[in-house]
């Protein structure tokens, strides 16, 4: 599906009241109220403050170094499209001296990912950036469509998420790039903080608010320059700049936007827009006790039930490699390889079933054999 440019309004207000003016330049009509501080701003001032805030986030966190090669995880969706556009713009405006490549993962979902990849390919031309596509099929010999056919639709996102994460790393490795940036925004981060609090997942909570993450021993770091950028502002930025992005929902997640933590967030935001940033700050300020101390305590508590597995577990920390594929893993075999092994099992089972049903004659024979007279 091709992209349709949003229509430019033709009705322009003739006389503006003072209360309608932008609170930064005091001369143009305000078009939005910024969710983080409720400031009313015009289009031009919005572009300026939004871009400058992202720039400040990048500079104050030393996200890039001069000469660094960076891959942008590009899905064709709104966040990564705005990210690609902005990072290119800021790199030129502020002379970061970085080298940018778009990196996309083709999960193999007909009618969804093939369309979104078409968007990425248009972006590649529009922004004049190199593009690399890695596919599940070439890396794992499975497409998501095939995975869903054997594993069912319910687990699709589990498989997809684990394989995609690894694919981005492998793609970066192939390009000899050690830094992947993604379009995760403030809403995503606040949602993750909330979910980790609800689940009591302390280990993840600490990691979830970091702008740059790197696993021990992994050559590839990840960062989120949109950490403090509101989803609403990203979408408005794309809208006003008329950026070409893809917004069809994945075939396997028709209900994904209903009844989730995201919904809770949107309702909270409607009451008090600053809550998104507030939740992130809360997450950042939850300082936890020293990790070893915490583990010791937990260990004594769970000693009995964990006795059997603890010896094996404690030797595999973050920074080990999967015995099968060499990917970084906290277990002997990485999650992707474990999932793959399960999939292979189901594939052979299904092939077997298909074979018998196809060979009609043989099946009749077997059925006959089972009949007792």
């Amino acid at each position, binding site marked *: 599906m091709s992209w349709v440019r949003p*229509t430019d309004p*033709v*009705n322009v207000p003739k006389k503006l009241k003072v209360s309608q003016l932008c609170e930064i330049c005091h001369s143009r009509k305000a078009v939005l109220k910024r969710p983080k501080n409720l400031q009313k701003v015009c289009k031009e001032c919005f572009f300026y403050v939004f871009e400058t805030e992202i720039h400040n986030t990048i500079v104050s966190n030393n996200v890039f170094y001069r000469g660094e090669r960076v891959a942008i995880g590009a899905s064709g969706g709104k966040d990564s499209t705005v990210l690609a556009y902005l990072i290119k713009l800021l790199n030129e405006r502020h002379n970061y001296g970085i080298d940018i490549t778009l990196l996309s993962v083709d999960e193999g979902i007909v009618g969804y990912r093939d369309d979104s990849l078409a968007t990425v390919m248009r972006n590649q031309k529009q922004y004049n950036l190199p593009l690399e596509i890695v596919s599940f099929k070439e890396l794992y010999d499975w497409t998501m469509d095939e995975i869903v056919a054997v594993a069912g639709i319910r687990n699709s996102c589990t498989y997809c998420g684990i394989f995609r994460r690894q694919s981005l790393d492998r793609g970066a490795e192939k390009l000899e790039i050690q830094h992947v940036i993604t379009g995760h925004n403030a809403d995503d981060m606040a949602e993750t903080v909330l979910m980790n609090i609800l689940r009591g997942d302390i280990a993840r909570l600490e990691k979830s608010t970091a702008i740059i993450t790197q696993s021990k021993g992994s050559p590839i770091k990840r960062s989120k320059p949109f950490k403090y950028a509101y989803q609403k502002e990203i979408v*408005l930025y794309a809208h006003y700049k008329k950026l070409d992005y893809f917004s069809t929902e994945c075939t396997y997640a028709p209900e994904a936007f209903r009844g989730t933590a995201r*919904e809770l967030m949107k309702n909270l935001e409607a009451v008090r827009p600053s809550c998104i940033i507030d939740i992130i700050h809360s997450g950042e300020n939850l300082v936890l006790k020293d990790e070893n101390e915490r583990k010791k305590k937990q260990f004594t508590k769970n000693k009995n039930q964990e006795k059997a597995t603890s010896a094996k577990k404690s030797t595999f920390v973050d920074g080990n490699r999967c015995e099968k594929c060499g990917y970084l893993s906290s277990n002997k075999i990485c999650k992707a390889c474990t999932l793959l092994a399960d999939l292979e099992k189901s594939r052979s089972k299904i092939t077997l079933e298909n074979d018998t049903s196809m060979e009609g004659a043989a099946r009749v024979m077997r059925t006959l054999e089972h009949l007792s007279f």
Partner: protein
Amino acid sequence: MIKVRVEFLGGLDVVFSKQRVHDLTIDAEELSMQGLIDYIVQNLITNKNDVDVFLEDDNIRPGIITLINDTDWELEGEMEYEVCDGDVISFTSTLHGG
């Protein structure tokens, strides 16, 4: 007669016959946003089960950005805004895709 262009963006078009742009001519002297939204729900949503993708508790669902001539409708009086001939009104989902 009021002519108005309505756009459903960011993936919202799925519940509007997959059509992003709808040019409407509404037979009325005056039309508020509330009236326009009622009209949209009655005439443009093909499957009534999809109404809650667009509305929640009779208001625009949180997570959908409503723009009146490119200005956030919260600066224009929301449901009370009087729609003018030639207005461009867009609804953009921030919840779809990623």
